[in-house]
């Protein structure tokens, strides 16, 4: 499913714009990383694409249909989202949480159908959380929890997977585990739009990178086109060594700490 964002502007308070006329295309089956400093508009853009926020102007289309024209249920069958953090009020088991991904596919009082069960099992396999099925969502570690929510999103069987800094709070092992699953999904043909801070992981997991600054997409292209020393310096204000991963051939970005002037 193609995602088409056209001249989208949005301001939280009606005055200071968080997005200024953003244009973005994510082709069907393509995976795109949104990178940029804090406050550059990545999360806001994802919220607009997911429908949580309505843009002040501009449109979001999924294939040819405007997002606003879809019912909540239709939208939830197309789009799934994993956020940075998610509160979990009650002691649901991991399997029960993954099963909530089926809500847009099930009738209000319907029992779990064979399709539901298959989708849930498959999602738990993909997210590598089978061993956690009966554990309480509140008792698993932060890294496992994010994989559970990824599993829930996959159980939704969406056309487009949206991820908003899903690995920010995770340790290295869980970051790598999570992003490996995302890459597998992208390679299997899922349309993916992910906001992420780790430029090196972004370069490995996605086809294209869109660099945001001050509410706009300033550069967009393949990882090695976008992740240049000049771009990193201009947008993040950071000096970095940019090179090619000796084994994978993907771009890496190695930032250097700054010595403050006396």
């Amino acid at each position, binding site marked *: 499913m193609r995602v088409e964002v056209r001249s989208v502007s949005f301001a939280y308070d009606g005055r200071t714009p968080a997005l200024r006329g953003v244009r973005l295309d994510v082709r069907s089956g393509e995976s795109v990383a949104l990178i940029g400093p804090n406050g550059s508009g990545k999360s806001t853009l994802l919220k607009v694409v997911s429908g949580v926020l309505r843009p002040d102007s501009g449109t979001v289309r999924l294939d040819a249909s405007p997002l606003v024209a879809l019912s909540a249920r239709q939208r939830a069958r197309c789009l799934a989202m994993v956020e940075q953090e998610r509160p979990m009020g*009650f002691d649901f088991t991991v399997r029960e949480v993954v099963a909530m991904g089926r809500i847009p596919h099930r009738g209000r009082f319907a029992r779990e159908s064979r399709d539901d069960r298959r989708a849930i099992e498959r999602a738990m396999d993909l997210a590598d959380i089978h061993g956690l099925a009966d554990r309480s969502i509140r008792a698993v570690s932060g890294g496992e929890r994010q994989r559970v929510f990824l599993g829930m*999103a996959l159980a939704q069987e969406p056309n487009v997977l949206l991820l908003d800094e899903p690995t920010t709070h995770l340790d290295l092992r869980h970051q790598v585990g999570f992003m490996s699953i995302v890459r597998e999904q992208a390679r299997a043909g899922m349309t993916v739009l992910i906001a992420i801070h780790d430029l090196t992981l972004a370069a490995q997991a996605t086809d294209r990178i869109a660099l945001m600054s001050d509410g706009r997409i300033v550069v967009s292209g393949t990882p090695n086109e976008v992740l240049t020393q000049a771009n990193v310096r201009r947008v993040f204000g950071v000096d970095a060594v940019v090179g090619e991963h000796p084994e994978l051939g993907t771009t890496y970005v190695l930032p250097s700490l700054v010595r403050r002037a006396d």
Partner: protein
Amino acid sequence: MGRRRGRWILFGLAVLAVLSLLAGIVIGPVTIPVRDAFAGLLGDETVSTVHRVIVRQIRLPRVLLGLLVGSALAVSGVAMQGLFRNPLASPYVLGIASGASTGAALAILFATGSAFLLPLGAFVGAAAAVAIVYGLARGRDRRTSIFTLILAGVAVGALFSAVTSFLIFLSSGGEKLSDVLFWIMGGLGRAGWPSVAVLAPIVAVGIGGVIVLARDLNALSLGEEGAFHVGVNPDALYRWLLVLTTALTAAAVAMAGTIGFIGLVIPHVMRLLVGPDHRRLIPVSALAGGCFLVWSDVAARTVLAPAELPVGVITAFLGAPFFLYLLKTRGARL
């Protein structure tokens, strides 16, 4: 938590409800033999007139009212805890109890005549309190802020309590004062067929409505945005939940006063038994809340017989220590 286990617990509670109904009829200042109770219920004219009147006109409506009020409060508690995603919420967080008390106090102190004025006053007071709270919590963007909702509930509740205290002060003692206090503490003493007839349809529709929203309440435990992403509109859900819980709680309180702890403790205990899935939690909480209130009322009638304790005293005596025990043993996992 297995579906099967949930079903057994539901079945067990249904049996318990029937037993509670019988017990509530048999036990009291006048003990009625079980045989007479059955005969009275079935309209057998061979029973003594006194027993028949006690069964049909006094105890049966009282037990039924207990079942209705208890289930309404327990389901409101489940809905409020789900809405606030907080296990410490109760049906009274939005100022319903205080609003109802003010309305009831006004009716008792200033209106005389119709027996319907007290429940009507309580209902109007409760609805007014929630309307004010909801109005305050609805932002200019027409979205409801949960945070404002709870704070406004506390503030509006305090305001109505102050009005009630002022009214009590004005009443300068007397019989009316004790009427107000008894009502505030809660009790089934005003039970009669009219109150059962008014409450039954409200409770049926209210609980039915919350059951329809059970799945959405599950989704809401993922947070507002989490629920949104699986296709549940949180604002519409809040609106419906507020309408349904206000109707349930206000109607229950109008008939029986502000009985505490059922709406707080029953949902907890049931969550421990059947897990947090609202599709199971709501029906079992309804039955458990009803049974709990009937037995509390039996205790209220018999402990100091022939004097009658306010049933709210019993539910608090049973509920508060149990709640503390849960807090102590399960702590953060609540």
